[in-house]
């Protein structure tokens, strides 16, 4: 079935809980109101015409500008070979929606991942806990305003760059030469200047002043 047909089947059954088809994107998607999600998903799976037997992917997108978190469901039907995309738009402050784990078992780990990294609460999930990060980690890293904690169990999460204050060798030589020249102009009496000029005039080379490299 085409996305248009799937959408009209959904709109006929659920009315206002299902938004309009968004065709400008490469993969058209449909917004579903959060309270109706579980029923919509159960219908999509059980209806013999639609028969979406697989939840392929569950992702979340953080939109601080819109103050929203989008939960995106990529569905696929192995029998009918068609795909469909559902989106639930949640409030950013307290994102919570019903778990679809009773409908598709693959949602178990996919929802845990999004809970861990984005902080979306899936009500009715059998085992909602962090999956990637340690259980006592603070914050949800995929949020756009996430700030990493400074240390974790006294292990610093940042480190000083070993290159801080590093000066290249040729830069060091240059600086040493400049310092030596400055030293010389300060200490040398102005009377010494004519002799150098005289030496230059006679063609005699004055030995270059030896500058010591800093250790």
């Amino acid at each position: 079935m085409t996305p248009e047909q799937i959408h009209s089947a959904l709109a006929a059954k659920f009315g206002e809980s299902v938004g309009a088809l968004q065709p400008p994107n490469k993969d058209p998607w449909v917004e579903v109101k959060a309270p109706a999600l579980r029923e919509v998903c159960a219908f999509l799976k059980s209806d013999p015409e639609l028969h979406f037997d697989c939840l392929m992917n569950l992702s979340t997108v953080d939109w601080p500008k819109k103050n929203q978190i989008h939960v995106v469901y990529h569905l696929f039907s192995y029998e009918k070979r068609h795909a469909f995309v559902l989106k639930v738009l949640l409030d950013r402050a307290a994102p919570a929606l019903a778990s679809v784990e009773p409908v598709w078992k693959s949602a178990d780990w996919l929802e845990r991942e999004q809970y861990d990294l984005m902080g979306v609460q899936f009500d009715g999930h059998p085992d909602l806990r962090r999956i990637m990060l340690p259980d006592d980690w603070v914050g949800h890293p995929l949020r756009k305003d996430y700030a990493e904690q400074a240390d974790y169990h006294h292990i610093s999460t940042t480190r000083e760059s070993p290159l801080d204050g590093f000066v290249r060798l040729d830069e060091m030589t240059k600086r040493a030469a400049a310092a030596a020249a400055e030293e010389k102009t300060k200490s040398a009496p102005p009377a010494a200047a004519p002799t150098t000029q005289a030496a230059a005039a006679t063609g005699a080379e004055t030995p270059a002043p030896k500058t010591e490299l800093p250790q």
Partner: protein
Amino acid sequence: MTEPRRAPETPTMEMTSNKEVLRRIEYTGDMLLNMGPQHPSTHGVINFLVQTDGEVMKRAIPEVGYLHRSIEKIGERCTYNGFMPYTDRVDYIAAMFANQGWAMAVERLLGLQVPRRAEFCRVIACELNRISSHLISVGTMAMDIGAVTPFPYALREREFINDLLEELCGARLTYNYLRIGGVAFDLPSGYEDKVSTFLDHFEKILDEFNRLITYNEIFIKRLAHLAPIPAQMAIDYCLVGPNLRASGMSFDVRKALPYSVYPDFEFDVPVGKGEVGTPGDAWDRFWCRVEEMRQSCRILRQALAQLPKDTAIMGKVPRKIKIPEGTEAYSRIESARGDMQYYVVAGPGENAHRVKIRTGSFTAMGIIDALSRGLMIADLVALIASLDVVAPEIDR
């Protein structure tokens, strides 16, 4: 030095601890063991919390995340081109596919056409990589259950492929070969002959490998009827790739939703039939991988024969890739570990707003808890190996 970044004072949500999990398993006098995270046969840094009664497991709970490098977050910070080397690290055994998934997702965002020769280069590189990945998989699986001999045989063949890929792109593991809109390098001169010489050699080795291990009496007795996955369960848990096909479901993204130049090639999709045991058992998953290597050889031969003579290997890619904010693309490719999917939402600048990578190993790990009930501990090792999970691909 910059000011250290501070986390918010109050955690946003209540945490559940590991102890909570232990408490959930009611106390029955069983043993609770940690298998991993440095166990040699868990294929990377994975921990299994095993509740056992003697040798029989009641449950094995996979604990993952030890290799989490937040590649998805890195993808939001890098430019589209700059993210390509990071995708290698998603699955370092089969890096070429992660490259291709990312390239295809961004090409889809841009509406870009890839030159035909570049597509052939991609197919040749990917199929070589598929063979090398499956060699590691079948070799380590045999080793995990005690047959040490096949592993060096498999690694020896993999060395040839590593050499071939090194000649192609300069790297033996993390290739960074694909580019958005094409490939980085054309095939070197004489490459076709080298690959076909390798294929002549390798097809004979595959028969030898089958005699050595696949149809070995002890091996069959060890794996037949072990942890069979019915097709319906495999779909429900979203198993993909060889794991799904071993359960009797004939689905290959290259066939079902053709991409690149795969429609031009003839190949079969090996499906597990329960030849020596139950359909979808561990032996079927092993056999599917061995057969897929043979099919990859077929694809490679056809790709070499049909290789276009034109020289363009890069499409017309803008110097700065800018995509209207909020545009989305989804790409599906058949990786060595199955259906690999990228979901990309474009950001305002030159980088993505969100990158989500759905990998085969991640969903394969999710089924282990359900399958482990009532298995022997030694069979858990065979089960993990037969599902061909790779730790970095689970954690990303």
